């Protein structure tokens, strides 16, 4: 009996932590159903379809030179575009948050336009401008720089569609970064440059990473605007989504799903890595608590 008294009653392992917020079962059930219908089942179908080739056939289809070329073009340009977006998106967010100037609100609203614009329209507009005879393209043509119909064009289209993601993730965080921290830095003798690079930017890091991930993911999946400006030369400016479309037109459905699956795996790996870095930095600096 004494043993029974001295040991605390052992609670059976439970699937969830007790919580005062009701509705766990309902919300989890809904989440799982929704998640399955919208995301999981289509993705599994994709994997199953491509697995029909068997490991060897899959490997052969995935390592086809043209497929590898298109994947390289897609991921390299998307990483460059996300990198560029992070730099200039942060700058734009800074400008919108920190200064009051006429037309700020209109400017702020325009940032979202790439979200709303049909991507084909964006692609045609960008091509018209950046083509060698276009307004901007004509400026670069004498220098021998071609933008449209090269990977540079792809990067530009990706920057266009990815920008809002970066600006919109950094903006609210920047608004929250306490003015006091900047003042503290100044009272300690730091100049503006030191304050920005040692105090403000590090505290924006989680938001910058999120913005990068979103812009990158969006750029990898982009199709509509890029095919107009890219020129679509295999091994040079042919993106993976376009190759998938070409495979479909050839009625090579399995080939298309193989490319899609590989894209998915690479994207997932990169996004997962970014998420890990973010979780680590959040834990370490105590953001979000």
């Amino acid at each position, binding site marked *: 009996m004494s043993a029974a008294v001295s040991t605390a009653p052992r609670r059976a392992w439970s699937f969830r932590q007790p919580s005062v917020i009701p509705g766990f079962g309902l919300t989890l059930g809904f989440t799982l159903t929704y998640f399955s219908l919208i995301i999981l089942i289509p993705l599994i179908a994709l994997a199953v379809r491509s697995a029909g080739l068997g490991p060897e056939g899959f490997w052969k289809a995935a390592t086809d030179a043209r497929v590898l070329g298109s994947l390289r073009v897609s991921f390299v340009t998307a990483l460059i575009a996300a990198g560029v977006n992070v730099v200039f998106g942060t700058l734009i967010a800074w400008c919108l948050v920190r200064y009051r100037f006429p037309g700020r609100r209109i400017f702020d609203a325009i940032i979202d336009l790439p979200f709303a614009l049909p991507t084909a329209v964006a692609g045609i507009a960008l091509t018209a401008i950046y083509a060698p005879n276009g307004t901007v393209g004509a400026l670069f043509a004498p220098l021998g720089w071609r933008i449209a119909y090269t990977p540079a064009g792809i990067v530009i289209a990706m920057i266009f569609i990815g920008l809002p993601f970066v600006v919109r993730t950094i903006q609210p965080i920047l608004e929250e970064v306490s003015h006091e921290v900047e003042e503290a830095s100044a*009272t*300690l*003798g730091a*100049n503006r440059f030191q304050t920005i690079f040692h105090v403000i930017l*590090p505290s924006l890091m989680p938001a910058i990473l999120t913005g990068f991930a979103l812009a990158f993911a969006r750029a990898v999946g982009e199709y509509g605007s890029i095919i107009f400006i890219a020129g679509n030369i295999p091994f040079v400016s042919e993106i993976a989504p376009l190759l998938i479309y070409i495979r479909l037109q050839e009625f090579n459905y399995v080939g298309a799903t193989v490319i899609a699956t590989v894209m998915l795996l690479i994207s997932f790996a990169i996004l997962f890595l970014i998420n890990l870095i973010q979780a680590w930095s959040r834990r370490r*600096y105590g953001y979000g*608590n």
Partner: protein
Amino acid sequence: MEVRVQNVRKEFDRFPALHDVSLDIHSGELIALLGPSGSGKTTLLRLIAGLEMPTAGKIFFGDTDASEKTVQERNIGFVFQHYALFRHMTILENISFGLKVRPRSTRPPNGEIRRRAMELLDLVQLTGLEKRYPNQLSGGQRQRVALARALAIEPAVLLLDEPFGALDAQVRRELRKWLREIHDRTGHTTVFVTHDQEEALELSDRLCVMSQGKIEQVGTPDTVYDHPTSPFVFGFIGESSTLPVTVENGELWVGGRAIGVPAGDATPGDARLFFRPHDVELVEADASLAGVVSTSRRVGGTRRVELEIGGAGHHVEVDLPFDHPAGEKTRLAFRPRRWKLFPAA
């Protein structure tokens, strides 16, 4: 370092926050800027720091005019109410930040920076926490880190903006004592802002009581408490009761009755009488303030009763011994032992 504030005025968007304020801060003293919110105390502190620029007037650090200097050039230590620690840096990095950002010519070598930071960590009694991040510390610990960070640059003046405002009562009292010890040990000229009069009375060498953008009174805690120079100061510092009175024949009258308090050299006419609730004596005599108890409650070691004086519905508070039998509707007569008369507003 001596700090002189000379006829400083500050307006925010044409809204005046400080009117023509002058204040001499002695070298090595711990002075409190005390006032209700909106009194301009934080504005004055930020002007001294250089975080705001005065609309008019000058601020001197010693003999040099600091008004035109930037925050960075003033070499001040500033402690914020909400700590404002850099949360992506460890405690050690936070404390050494001020030394690390110095230009190469005046920056101590890395080993020296580390040694100084560790010394300060010792001073603020946080030895062993140098590798933690701010979010791993309690509020009181964070504020101590903030103080160590401010002290690291060997500031000419240490400025604290409601340093204990965000902490709970017990930590507050501890830190108060501790800040006093640190000040006595390091001897920095220190200015701190507070709206807590108890804190100001206990901690400071001198108080500067502010209200509505003006300085009401500057003096030692004793002077300000015992000899307030304005009704505002009397009401703001310590407990107080007030009653409209009439000065006539060298005596004070309430509702047509002399209350047994000599008027001194006050000019005849209407006036306001101020006294402390604990500084009264109960009397039997006729010439006294008499009233009926309307509420009574126990406050620590005493019983505070609210008396209704006369028919005009004036209420005053008076402290009685906790075991005094007075209950509701009891009639009490008392005389203030010490009091102050101010002209009627």
